[in-house]
């Protein structure tokens, strides 16, 4: 199978959906000729024109609100938010408007829009261009949240998001844009709420999102050499969450580590860990352990930044402790 980058996968998904549905359009800062700073959207304006690939002023709440109104009245906008950190700027439009319109209208109005943005530290971009803020929006009922872990997921989830009748937020890890993965030429969609068991194992479950799936897979390979077989699961969407697949795995392995690049406190790792505790408690041999980003603003210095996020080595270390029985109580 051919291999393409995550960036190309996103571009293909959007182009295919724009060809398929004339109501789909893109808007955001520098999305047209510039194709975004990460060049993810390069070439789209040449095919679809400036009518459907719209450069906006630097006014995130404004263009987010415009997307909500367009979505409510028959368009399917894809909003490009240049950095995930800017999500704080659009919170009212996303969380008070987009997320609640369907409910507040008693089901009469829909907001079919996609907000594509990014996440991920270790790019030496400091505290306002490095955050992974997916937990914030996952807290708000009415929003769906997808976190592609490779080019394959990026394409299939984006196509599903564009066809969904709800506001969907997609967080792409900006460090993975150039990562290649096998992506079929023929069309496919990835349904929301279906986790992907990336690797089967019997000793411990590693539940990981986005780029942390790679971290978990690397850890699993190291552990396997030591005789510990880890099962790696990528939820792919955290809202909706495929709880059943996670619980089934943990019942089998009796141990779990949840790895995610959002801050650890009040985050995705906490949410998943507590669901496992509630629903698989009597099958657990050890506490479910959370591994998120440290609860600090992301520092600039490489010496500091690199220690804020989970790494394969640290996942391996934790897995060893759990499997050896050393971790009877939570760390």
């Amino acid at each position: 199978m051919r291999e393409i980058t995550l960036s190309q996968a996103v571009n293909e998904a959007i182009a295919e959906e724009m060809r398929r549905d004339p109501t789909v359009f893109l808007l955001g800062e520098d999305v047209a000729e510039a194709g975004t700073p990460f060049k993810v959207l390069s070439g789209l304006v040449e095919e679809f024109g400036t009518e459907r690939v719209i450069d906006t002023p630097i006014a995130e709440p404004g263009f987010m609100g415009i997307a909500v109104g367009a979505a409510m009245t028959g368009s399917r906008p894809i909003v490009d938010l240049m950095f995930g950190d800017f999500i704080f700027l659009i919170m009212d439009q996303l969380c008070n408007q987009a997320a609640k319109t369907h409910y507040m209208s008693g089901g009469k109005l829909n907001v079919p829009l996609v907000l594509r943005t990014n996440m991920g530290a270790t790019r030496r971009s400091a505290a306002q261009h490095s955050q992974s803020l997916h937990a914030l929006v996952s807290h708000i009922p009415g929003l769906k949240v997808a976190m592609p872990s490779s080019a394959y997921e990026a394409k299939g989830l984006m196509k599903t998001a564009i066809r969904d009748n709800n506001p969907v937020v997609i967080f792409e890890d900006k460090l993975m844009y150039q990562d290649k993965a096998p992506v079929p030429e023929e069309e496919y969609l990835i349904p929301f709420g279906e986790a992907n068991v990336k690797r089967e194992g019997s000793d411990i479950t590693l539940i990981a999102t986005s780029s942390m799936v790679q971290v978990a897979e690397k850890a699993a390979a190291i552990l396997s050499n030591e005789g510990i077989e880890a099962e790696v699961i990528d939820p792919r969407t955290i809202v909706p969450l495929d709880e059943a697949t996670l619980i089934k795995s943990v019942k089998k392995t009796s141990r779990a580590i949840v790895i995610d690049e959002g801050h650890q406190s009040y985050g995705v790792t906490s949410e998943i860990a507590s669901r496992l505790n509630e629903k698989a408690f009597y099958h657990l041999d050890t506490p479910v352990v959370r591994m998120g980003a440290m609860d600090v603003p992301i520092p600039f210095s490489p010496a500091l930044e690199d220690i804020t996020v989970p790494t394969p080595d640290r996942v391996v270390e934790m897995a060893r402790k759990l499997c050896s029985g050393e971790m009877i109580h939570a760390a």
Partner: protein
Amino acid sequence: MAKAKTNTEDYLRMYRQMMRIRTFEDNANQLYLSAKMPGLTHMYSGEEAVAVGICEALTDDDRITSTHRGHGHCVAKGANFKEMFCELLGKEEGYCRGKGGSMHIADQSHGNLGANAIVGGSMGIATGSALRAKLLGKDDVTVCFFGDGATAQGLLYEVMNMAALWNLPVIYACENNGYSEYTKTEEIAAGSITARAEAFGIEAFKVDGQDVLAVNELTQKLVARCRKGEGPFFIELETYRYHGHHVGDINREYYRSKDEEKDWKENRDPIIRFRSYLVAEGIATEDEIEAMNAEIEKDATEAVAYAEAAKYPDVSEVDMHVYAD
């Protein structure tokens, strides 16, 4: 009053719609005072000529966005009393199945995109609706209602900038009722409100919001120009709210005097003024107007009774409509 026109039916409908708003609000206020209505509500009484003058210049295909003070826009855009009172009381047959209440009331089938409880929250939505019209080649127009208080929100300036850059068919209708919640507008708004729109190259107008014909005449012109691609436009409508910020804001002499309220009610009431005009022009007799008022009152009384007796939504609806299929 602005220049007379010959369309008797249009005039009578405008009067009727203004009277329906006033009557709806009087009944809503009674529901609050008698503790029959859950929560609070923000009365539109006094501002009727704004909603009616504008909405009578629109078709069902045209959209509006409304505010927390939204009952007037809702009635003016074609809603029925029955579903509105049901919504106010949180009943299943309400326009939003009881999930929105007073602050989110809207008859979506007539192009009302919802009342918004975030001050200025709908400015993006209205502008986006206009962008959609342009992108999909439709000729509908969107009117964004908001108050003077909302002119302090940054969102307005972000979306007016884009609406002007992209020539969008949207009309920003600023209902200046003189008060930003409990604070005089002059204390929160520096300079001129219309000049702010003009800074973006948007043609801005100031109109007497108590004169339904003046409002309607201006809006008709601007809607026609929007349909020809000449939008956006901005209107500042000078008006007044008779009640407090909400129904519970009763002792309000610390921010405005009773004399001031009395003056607006006695000398600038949009309904009294239009009624006198209709009679003077021979468009309707006093008896005909009284009969119309009585009919509206009866309609409201019946709708209130219906809503009071109506069912609440089944508890199973609580997690329905979080996501669309």
